[in-house]
């Protein structure tokens, strides 16, 4: 499933589409960025409430499929511009991380 398809199915907002050809192949939840960078895998959906420009840098370096920002958090304009430039897909939702993880688990057959 692509991040855009996931967003449509569960009613998340697509803030930046990123590279639309990517598939979500796993998921990682976390707000401590070093922890995420050390453990998230390529093509994971990165589920977090941490909304700052470093989140985008971590998404790029860990090469995740998308960032899913939960609990109604928002990125600032500079972060969004960086995400567009680096082709990072950002989705936003009011749902908590746990709920998003359940949705991802369902779609990933976990």
């Amino acid at each position, binding site marked *: 499933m692509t991040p855009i398809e996931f967003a449509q199915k569960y009613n998340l907002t697509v803030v930046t589409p990123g590279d639309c050809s990517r598939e979500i192949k796993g998921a990682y939840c976390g707000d401590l960025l070093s922890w995420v*960078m050390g453990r998230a895998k390529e093509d994971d959906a990165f589920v977090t409430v941490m909304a700052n420009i470093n*989140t985008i840098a971590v998404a790029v*370096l860990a090469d995740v499929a998308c960032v899913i920002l939960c609990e109604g958090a928002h990125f600032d304009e500079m972060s969004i511009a960086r995400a567009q430039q680096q082709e990072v897909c950002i989705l936003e939702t009011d749902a908590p991380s746990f709920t998003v993880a359940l949705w991802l688990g369902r779609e990933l057959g976990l």
Partner: protein
Amino acid sequence: MSALKWTYEVDGTDFTRAGEASSNVKKKLRALGVPSDVIRKVSIALYEGEINMVIHANGGVIDVEMSPDRIDMVLKDTGKGIPDIEKAMQAGYSTAADEVRSLGFGAGMGLPNMKKNTDEMRIESTVGVGTTVYMTVYIS
């Protein structure tokens, strides 16, 4: 093939710019056809290093040298130095300020992540003089 060399200045005053060197290296390695697992390891190790230079040392200089079989990185700063390297290497040990923690760093995972993602890593540090971190990732 002779070695390729790149040098980056890390701006120690702007936390939001940390990651520019690692992103740039990542782009270059990708263009050179380096395997993606090697690129990932190099990028993560460099980014953690950059973050450390901004948090603890007011910036510094990063030298990256790519040879056919390895990528060597040297991160040099003139910051306050590390009094106890063994302790600093422990996962979870951190001296970062609360402001840094609120941005999602300072969890004491930086140096352990750098070690985990490199094949060789060595730290030289003198309190009051600065720190130099040498890291190598082999291209197999």
